[in-house]
């Protein structure tokens, strides 16, 4: 197996285009497991670690641009306060060792329905910056990025360069159910982000359908119920969080598998959606979180 080590982004794109059998590797926390478990035997590994800019972040055009290779540990420390939902998700990924190596770019590249970054990226309305030598840059909205189980909108010659998202405009929460209290792949997960300026609530569901997805009906329901300025300054109407939770549960398309049953997943999503909306709303009224 060849080990390709591009030193610049351009070189990386050129190698990507020239070696369709090469598998990009960043933290390697997915790739190496697959190789060890003989899930794949790639002809080459395309090591993106020497491309240092991928491990950086910046503020640009009022948005945060997080390099595909920024490890979770640094994401939490350096930009966690601006993207609390994503940071909460990052905190639940694996163990400290995994968070020192694992990245958002790798989570997107792997596109496991259980990947923890996806729900907060969906809830926040993030965009994925991808690029190829031939086709140039594309900005893909998170909800268009996931096509199927471990399938994405990324073309064969493209690499993920960064994710873009606005610093939180309101409270955000991420919640994940696993059968262990740490280092566990999600049985199902849920993210919420309040967008007060747009009078809107963003959602993301993980591990309860072939792809991560938004709970569109639940979002619309809340937008309708909370239309108008006054609603956003008051306590949540009775029963609203419950109804929201039910709609989130209904939005999922879960299956029975080794990690849990479909019925449990729907139920747990409803509970998490109700709780996280309640927390977010409390944050908002208390003036904590961002608003």
């Amino acid at each position, binding site marked *: 197996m060849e080990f390709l080590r591009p030193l610049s982004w351009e070189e990386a794109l050129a190698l990507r285009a020239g070696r369709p059998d090469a598998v990009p590797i960043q933290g390697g926390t997915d790739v190496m497991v697959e190789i*060890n*478990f*003989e899930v794949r035997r790639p002809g080459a590994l395309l090591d993106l670690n020497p491309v240092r800019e991928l491990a950086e972040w910046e503020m640009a055009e009022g948005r945060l641009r997080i390099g595909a290779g920024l490890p979770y540990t640094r994401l939490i420390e350096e930009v966690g306060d601006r993207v609390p939902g994503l940071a*909460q998700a990052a*905190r*639940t990924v694996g*163990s400290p060792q995994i968070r020192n190596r694992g990245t958002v770019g790798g989570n997107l590249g792997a596109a496991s329905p259980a990947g923890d970054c996806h729900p907060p990226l969906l809830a926040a309305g993030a965009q994925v910056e991808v690029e190829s030598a031939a086709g140039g840059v594309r900005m893909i909205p998170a909800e268009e990025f996931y096509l199927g189980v471990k399938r994405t909108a990324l073309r064969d010659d493209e690499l993920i360069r960064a994710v873009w998202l606005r610093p939180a405009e309101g409270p955000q*929460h*991420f*919640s*994940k*159910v*696993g*059968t*262990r*209290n*740490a*280092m*566990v*792949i999600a*049985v199902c997960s849920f993210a919420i982000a309040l967008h007060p300026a747009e009078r809107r609530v963003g959602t993301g569901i993980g591990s309860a359908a072939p792809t991560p997805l938004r709970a569109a009906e639940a979002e619309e329901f809340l937008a309708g119920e909370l239309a108008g300025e006054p609603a956003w300054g008051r306590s949540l109407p009775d029963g609203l969080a419950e109804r929201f939770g039910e709609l989130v549960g209904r939005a999922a398309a879960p299956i029975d598998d*080794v*990690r*849990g*049953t479909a*019925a*449990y997943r729907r*139920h*747990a999503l409803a*509970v*998490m959606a109700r*709780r996280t909306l309640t*927390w977010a709303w409390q944050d908002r009224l208390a003036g904590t979180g961002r608003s």
Partner: protein
Amino acid sequence: MTVEAARRGGEALGDSALRPDGVLKVTGEFAYSSDLWADDMVWGVTLRSPHPRARITGIDVSEALAVPGVHAVLTHEDVPGEKFYGLEHHDQPVLAIDQVRYQGEPVALVAADHPETARRARDRIRVGYEVLEPLTDARRAALDPSYPKVHGDRSNVVRHQPIRVGDMAHARRVAEVVVRGEYEVGMQDQAFLGPESGLAVPAEDGGVDLFVATQWLHVDQEQIAPCLGLPTGRVRLTLAGVGGAFGAREDLSMQIHACLLALRTGRPVKIVYGREESFFGHVHRHPARLRYEHGATRDGRLVYVDAEIVLDGGAYASSTSAVVGNAASLGVGPYEVPNVRLDAYGVYTNNPPCGAMRGFGAVQACFAYESQMDKVAEACGLDPVEVRIRNAVAEGSRLATGQVIDMPAPLAAMLEDARAFPAPPPTGTADVRDLPGGVSNTTHGEGVRRGVGYAVGIKNICYSEGFDDHSTARVRLETVGGEPAALVHTAAAEVGQGLVTLQAQIARTELGVRQVTVAPADTGVGSAGSSSASRQSYMTGGAVRAACEAVRERVIELAEERLGRSLPGASLHDGRVVAADGLAVASLAEVLAGRAVEETREFRHRRTTALDPLTGQGDSHVQFAFCVHRAVVDVDVELGLVKVVELAAVQDVGRILNPLALEGQIHGGSAQGLGLALMEEIQVRDGVVRNPSFTDYLIPTILDMPPMRTRILENADPHAPYGLRGAGEPPTLSSTPAIVAAVRDATGRPLTRIPVRPEHISCG
């Protein structure tokens, strides 16, 4: 030397002597069996069956042999000696012959100069399978004679052990309260961290030297040699660094395979299983279905137990018979029960083979009988601790097997102790890591309820049912650089339990020397028996002590010769011979005068008897050990997530030999029980394992295992060396039912199956 004096020194018996491998393991420098290396070695890999049950219609190895770098490809036809092996029954083929009986059964072997080459060649072996429907219903295998057989004409029942005591018809009339329950225990894995591995080196005498991580060198040797067609003495084993065992290394895995390849290629052969392969490479804990009916008087005294226990042994017998013996003989728990009808079955199916795991048959039964005791308590309106105290055995009690407990068994007092532990404070909501769900941020206190549960267990220590068990130790005392030094040599496997440390502590104390070396364990000395059944402190500890005593006697004789007078009651202390009056009369260096004194001793425990095959009566066990747990849990009752807040244990160990190591055993055993209660299960459907990885086979992390309180009692067993009681297994029994009882207390759910899953709590 007294223990009190020794404690001050720091490394004698009773001290928390530190283990030599501790720092190395924590810093990643310890050499495990997977780190073995020989310059000219080749790599062995195993082709395994994807099917749980199939007829093999043909094996074509030609393409694999053609891969450059491949040195050998072997099938069952290449096994020169016996084609079958096994711990209790020789029913397991070295390589599958004409059929496969479980998913993952070894079919062929490849040796190549690189592991990846070997794997690629393995993938080119063509095996024709005629796939058959797997036989996976253990209860039918036990009870339905028309169920098809897993092994030709042989019965599917590996062992059926009944227990019959008293007059059940009468008992049913007398009982005022009757509770029934059906329980299920999922398949737990030992989940050791160091996968199966070893290095086989062909020797000039035509034999082979095998370096391997195992639990009992000599039983491996006895099984390997006949399959290789070699006399036992030409298969020599040395223990390599063991990364945990818990029973999973009692059966052979890669041992015969590596030796076959080494003898065929004339090169050292290394085999290392990957994590996924490891799940198929060793036996697991028997999954069980248990039906219990308890009859009691209204004041909570047990009148009878009527029970059926079905243990699924999977495709090969392994140690199923002995596991059945434990489940049966300990099946009503540490309680006085005047009338018992109990049937324990161990059966063949096409599920993964099951055998030894910490707790060994006693674990499954304990979950059921302790769940039942809580039901009895509820039905009688009694406190769960109270109902246990009313029925608890004590010294002099008669067990269901008729065996009388002839050692201290202060169970009632232990239960009182457990109840008297202070309650942990309510959990704050400031840090999500303290709440159910932990870092996953699922609750800030919503839906969280506290529960408390108790359980006790009884475990036999040492091998049972008439097995004439022994351990051998060779101890040598000489002067090295002017200092007296002892060398201890046994074949006992250090599997992480701390036996090497203990052997040195014993020699230091018995011989009064500071310098003690424990030689690597190998078959160059007699058998030490298995590192299982919590027996090594007892058996190999006993052997080392006996050998030390023999050395001491000789040394004192030498001193007597030298001084020209007899020294009745003399001992060895601080490098000197000390007369009965406490005065040092000579130094060891003077007495030894350049000579070495070496003695080898075999230690045997007292005899036990078989269980009567019809009534289950017999003095089958050497020793009994007890542990009591109290579990306190917080449960998110809506999401079904559990945080164990505290585990408290009371255990009687007879005599504390190394407090630190002992606490480690209690913590570890309790954690393994926690795993079985809440998360650890190999999920099998139609004979196929669905989660052979640590992604989905979950073991507790530091956020799952709470701090522990322990109270350790020292009521000496007069029959045991130093009065000690084996300590490794008992905590594994009782922590599981205590936790489940606590979750029931918090949720009101029946929870009859372990591991308890979130959906059983929240949606069930």
